[in-house]
């Protein structure tokens, strides 16, 4: 399925993602990693560590509602994969980002901006395996 090339809104949206990463560093002194935030909701040591992650996650979920209030429609989502693939992919995403201590936001946005060597290894690694996976699914198996 084709999707429209959107360089301007994508860059603008990316700047907002960057702004939120800067806000979290300014306010709480933390890296904005979605994996860490999500796993922090499950495994936490004390309540002050849980509370800001809950607030952050609630804000993330509310943003779609805000878009609905302003534009009258929810963000467009097309899910071109089966529920089975969603589950398999999800478990592997959880396993991998937990072992690798980060994902697109933590290593990708924050890690690269900190010039972290670990992130400079992690990002090309997951970009490459994602591209290989999509190639195999769409052109080798699905071909």
């Amino acid at each position, binding site marked *: 399925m084709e999707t429209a090339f959107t360089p301007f809104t994508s860059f603008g949206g990316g700047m907002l993602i960057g*702004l939120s*990463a800067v806000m979290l560093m300014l306010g709480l002194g933390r890296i904005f990693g979605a994996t860490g935030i999500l*796993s922090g909701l499950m495994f936490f040591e004390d309540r002050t560590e849980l509370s800001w992650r809950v607030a952050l996650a609630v804000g993330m979920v509310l943003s779609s509602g805000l878009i609905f209030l302003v534009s009258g429609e929810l963000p467009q989502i097309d*899910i071109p994969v089966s529920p089975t693939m969603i589950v398999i992919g999800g478990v592997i995403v959880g396993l991998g*980002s937990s072992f*690798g201590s980060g994902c697109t*936001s933590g290593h990708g946005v924050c890690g690269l901006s900190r010039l972290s060597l670990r992130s400079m290894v992690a990002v090309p690694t997951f970009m490459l395996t994602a591209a290989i996976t999509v190639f195999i699914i769409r052109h080798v198996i699905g071909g």
Partner: protein
Amino acid sequence: MRLFFALLTGVVFGLGIAISGMIDPAKVLNFFDVAGTWDPSLAFVMGGAVTVTFTGYRLVWRRSAPIYAARFDLPTNTAIDARLIGGSALFGIGWGIAGFCAGAAIPALGTGRWEVALFLAAVMAGFVLRRFIDAMLQARALA
């Protein structure tokens, strides 16, 4: 105030995810499908995010501490090891299968699509599985 600031940060992140197109798995998978229906938009998301974060972090770090915490809490691990590389490789495979990562799925939950909840539940199962594997490896090392 601390929690309101975290909530607001989550909203800004979610808006960025939605506006940029990261929220849409069809668009994410097309970014990796160079040999097929390629959509390079997500490179612009990353460009926008890293530009703002790289600059913003350096401005924030001129302060002696964040607003609502005693100090900046940055990752100290610098090891380029099998966990980092293997975990990142796995994460990319899962991302390429499902088309979602945690950072895109949490804001997408606000659209009410059940597949998103399924994905996030699978990711959380992956976190638990990682802890289980680590516990097993540790027990084996001690035996």
